[in-house]
Structures are given as structure tokens and as C-alpha cells.
């Protein structure tokens, strides 16, 4: 970052530009997280909800399946990220 955001002058155009860029970045980050969460829910629901549905709540087995599903999903996120990063 070229202009230090610690300066409190909001009228400084450099600060405004930095704040705008950071907000845009934060918005993208938020969108990414929401999307990731939605995909995780969809994947783990597909894999873990026992069919036919017997009840609306999660059984103990389904709960631990969801936990493992999340952990695995994160591992895949990490591996794919590493591979994509290594490509460049």
C-alpha cells in the first residue's frame, strides 16, 4: 500500500482511493465466502442427508458426516489452492 491508511484525513484523495479499493476487495471476499458456504452446504447435504428422509432433524450419524464433510471440503480447498498457486 503506497499511502498509509493510518492518516486520518478522509479528504485526502489517496486515502479515499485506498478505502474504496479495500471496500471493493472486502466485498469480493464476502461474496466468495458466501458462495463457498452455499456450495459446502449443498455438497454436504447431498452427501450426508440420509434418504428417504425419516425426520427433519439430523441424526448423530448425519451430524458427524457433516463435520467430516466440512473438514474434507477444506482440505480440497487447500489442495486446489496450492496447485493453482504453484502453476504460476
Amino acid at each position, binding site marked *: 500500500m503506497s499511502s498509509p491508511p493510518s492518516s486520518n484525513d478522509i479528504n485526502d484523495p489517496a486515502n479515499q482511493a485506498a*478505502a474504496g479499493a479495500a471496500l471493493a476487495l472486502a466485498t469480493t*471476499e464476502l461474496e466468495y465466502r*458466501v458462495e463457498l458456504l452455499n456450495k459446502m452446504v*449443498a455438497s*454436504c*447435504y447431498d452427501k450426508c442427508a440420509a434418504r428417504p*428422509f425419516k425426520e*427433519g432433524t439430523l441424526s448423530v450419524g448425519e451430524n458427524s458426516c457433516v463435520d467430516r464433510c466440512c473438514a474434507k471440503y477444506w482440505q480440497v480447498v487447500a489442495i486446489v489452492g496450492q496447485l493453482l498457486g504453484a502453476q504460476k
Partner: protein
Amino acid sequence: MSLNFPIESAVNEMPQDGRDMLSSTLEHMQVRDSLKMYNNLVERCFRECSEDMRSKALSSKEEQCVVKCCEKFMHVTGRVGMRFSEFFSQMEAAAQQHMAEMLKQQEQQSKS
């Protein structure tokens, strides 16, 4: 990935109309996401539960299935959300630690 930029102080320093715009953007995103989720859930439970098209009304079995499908989806959402936030807070803590270590190293290098 965590943000290095102090986003909270940036928001606090923003002029009022900027903050209004930000909160309306967030609200818009929330409405959009909940509508998206509504559509997705309808699609999912229709796909999971409708068996045939011999009648124009849902059979009681299909209806029960839709109810359970939704409830289960809510529970899975809660559980995954819990693990999700755990993961991100861990990752942010790790990133902060990493930053602190890097700063320390830089300091030591500049001293020597």
C-alpha cells in the same frame, strides 16, 4: 486470505453518505442471497421429493418429504456454518501470527 487493510477504521472514517451506501449494499446482498437460497431450496426439495405427476397436488408423502427436506437443510446449514466460521477464525489467527512473525524478523534484520 485475510485483509491487511484496517477495514473497520476505514468504515469509521467514512463520510455519512458513504456509510449509508455501504449498509444499503450489504442489505441488498443479504436480500439477494436469501432469495437465491429460497429458489435453491425449492428446486432441491422439488427434485428430491416429487415422485410422479399423476396428480396435480402433492401427495401427503411428498408433502412430508418437502417439510423434512427443508428442516434438514436448515440443520445442515447451521452445522456447516458453525464449522465454516471456526475455520475462518482459525485461518485469520494464523495469518495474524504469520504477519507478527514477519514483522519481528524484519525488525531483527534492520537492527543487525
